[in-house]
């Protein structure tokens, strides 16, 4: 989350506080705001183009969970980490129930990165920070594929690894980044 939105999260605290006291209007406003935040979260976690995944389904599942478990939020605590922890839990749950783990289609990612037109949209600094947070092989692979724009086969030759191992390391690296930087 960006620091710019922290005041928005504070507004959420206030809304939920009034909601748990029974204020219907505040609760509606809270859920509406939470839906927007959670939708952005869900969309960023969803593997694109995969059949059977509907962002809106996940958003609704998260809202239902927030509703059912709202008594586990304590007045005075910030809502945002609580909300994101529930969203993450329901996202993992949704993937698991559909028989998939959180995955990013590697072949597709490879295409995107090999395609010069698909220029990276993230700020270079952020990418560097994300890649630097990885260790050893994963860092080398993610850096080669997503920063230097090498192909999987080229990376495999350069690092003296099998293509399968490169795919696995790339996938794990991306998952690690998603975990680290996706967390509240």
């Amino acid at each position, binding site marked *: 989350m960006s620091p710019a939105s922290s005041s928005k999260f504070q507004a959420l605290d206030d809304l939920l506080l009034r909601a748990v006291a029974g*204020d219907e209007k505040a*609760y509606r406003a809270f859920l509406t705001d939470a839906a927007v935040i959670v939708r952005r979260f869900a969309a960023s976690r969803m593997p694109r183009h995969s059949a059977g995944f509907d962002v809106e389904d996940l958003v609704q599942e998260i809202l239902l969970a927030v509703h059912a478990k709202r008594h586990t939020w304590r007045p005075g605590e910030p809502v945002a980490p609580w909300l994101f*922890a529930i969203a993450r839990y329901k996202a993992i749950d949704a993937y698991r129930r559909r028989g998939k783990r959180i995955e990013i289609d590697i072949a597709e990612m490879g295409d995107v990165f090999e395609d010069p037109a698909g220029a990276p949209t993230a700020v270079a600094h952020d990418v560097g920070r994300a890649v630097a947070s990885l260790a050893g092989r994963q860092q080398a692979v993610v850096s080669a594929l997503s920063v230097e724009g090498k192909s999987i086969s080229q990376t495999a030759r350069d690092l003296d690894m099998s293509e399968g191992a490169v795919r696995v390391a790339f996938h794990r690296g991306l998952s690690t980044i998603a975990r680290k930087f996706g967390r509240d």
Partner: protein
Amino acid sequence: MQTDELIAELAGNAGRQESGFVLPLWAAVVISPLLAFAVFMPLLGPRANFLTSFGALRFDMKFVTTGLLAITALGVLVALARPARPWRRLATMLVVPVAVLVAAVAVELVVVPQQLWETRALGENARNCLIAIPTMGAPVLALFLFALSRQAPTRPALSGGIAGLAAAGISAIFYAAHCPDDSPLFVAIWYPLATLVLVTVGALAGSRLLRW
């Protein structure tokens, strides 16, 4: 259903709490030793020389280690019960009972001659220990799982396992009052094995019962 419709419906239920009877965790924590005690008294009871044993270092150490385990595990359990609580930081406290037990074992190995190590470690009550701690811990574990199910643990299996660990800690305090084997060598072998039973059952049950 559209998300807007869902929101409208949920908002209409702002004041209602549908999750049934929510047993507060603090209440579960308070009830748990009473529950273990209720099983302990008819089944085992304190050993004959219970009161006069206090002051004997080995006897006292049993309560220090089991007590520390119960307290630290309960701390982690409470943190795991709700989303976004700092349970990892609390989980590092679990090394405290382990470190105390390891230190006690080290001292015991120094002060007890080697030919007695085996007798001390095997004790007289190994099998009782393996049965009694899980037996007294089982209702406590069930209580914790019930209380957890009304909260929102985002790590169901881990939460169940920690519930088993806390139940084992509480159960072991009572078992320590019954068991005549006081050597840290005995405690370091059989208590953890008995604990493992509850942790495993807790984790398995948690991964099934604590999803929400």
